[in-house]
């Protein structure tokens, strides 16, 4: 697997920490998935309940890489300021950069994304940009200093899977050396397998696991699906063909007419 800013991950599963029924179920999902990265966020803290402090203790115990996000940011300034705050709190250069451009689809504002990526890269961040499969935008992100690309599979939280397989395949072919992560939109383990079969390095998901009836079981299913996809992709799959080709040898077949 390609490395992520010099870090070799033990697997390609990046798992979100939101929307679980309880902290215990979150921990169980991480244990079952063996995810190598946890995505986290920043929100307002109150001195009365100190919820963030308890959450941080839980995350520390997961013993995974931390990838803070700028979720909910709609402007470059907001995203850049959030990234700086995240770097201090989580003590990491990694930032999952989201600049949201549209509310219905939570589609990234790719213009703001490129600008924010450039600003943050110049300031020493290692940016994981949440983007689309647009190749021109991807080129701009790499030019801005990104060494990882994270195209969406489908809108965040939709569970629709890989909406544009052609575009994602083109992206893999166009950037053979860049670590690519499918970020958002996955709903089923089979879609994770498909991402690996396309040659992607990792997937980032949250809702599909957290909102499943049994998050821990679903987390395990995604882990196994990733393994299956990676093994299959590495086993030099056959080329599909339009017409049938008998798999059982015809030579030696009895004449029984």
């Amino acid at each position, binding site marked *: 697997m390609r490395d992520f800013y010099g870090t070799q991950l033990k697997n390609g599963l990046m798992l979100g*920490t939101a929307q679980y029924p309880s902290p215990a179920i979150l921990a169980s999902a991480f244990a079952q998935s063996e995810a190598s990265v946890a995505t986290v966020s*920043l929100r*307002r803290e109150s*001195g009365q309940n100190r919820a*963030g*402090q308890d959450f941080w203790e839980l995350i520390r115990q997961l013993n995974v890489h931390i990838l803070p996000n700028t*979720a909910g940011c709609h402007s470059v300034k907001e995203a850049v*300021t959030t990234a700086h705050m995240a770097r201090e*709190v989580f003590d990491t250069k990694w930032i999952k950069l989201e600049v949201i451009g549209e509310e219905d689809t939570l589609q990234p504002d790719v213009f703001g994304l490129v600008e924010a990526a450039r600003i943050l890269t110049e300031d020493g961040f290692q940016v994981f940009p949440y983007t689309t499969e647009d190749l021109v935008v991807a080129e701009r992100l790499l030019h801005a200093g990104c060494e990882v690309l994270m195209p969406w599979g489908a809108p965040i939280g939709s569970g629709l899977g890989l909406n544009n397989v052609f575009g994602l395949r083109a992206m893999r072919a166009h950037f053979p050396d860049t670590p690519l992560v499918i970020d958002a939109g996955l709903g089923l383990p089979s879609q994770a397998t498909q991402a690996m079969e396309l040659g992607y390095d990792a997937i980032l998901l949250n809702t599909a696991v957290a909102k499943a009836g049994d998050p821990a079981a679903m987390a395990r299913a995604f882990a196994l699906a990733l393994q299956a996809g990676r093994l299959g992709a590495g086993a030099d799959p056959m080329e599909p063909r339009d017409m049938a080709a008998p798999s059982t040898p015809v030579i030696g077949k009895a004449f029984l007419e």
Partner: protein
Amino acid sequence: MKILLNGSPQEVPETTLSTLLENQGLGGAKVATAVNGAFIPATMRDDYLIQEGDSIEVLAPMQGG
């Protein structure tokens, strides 16, 4: 003086950002701060004197996807 702390109006004495956090029960907490939309690193909180009308954000680790 009046400030906005995480979006809520508050009446606070003239003080530094560090002392404000302590008074709010967040002394030593794992938080990041911003004032009027600008990040204030932890190392600068002792030096930042809160001004009338400041909008202060105090953020902590939270669940995210």
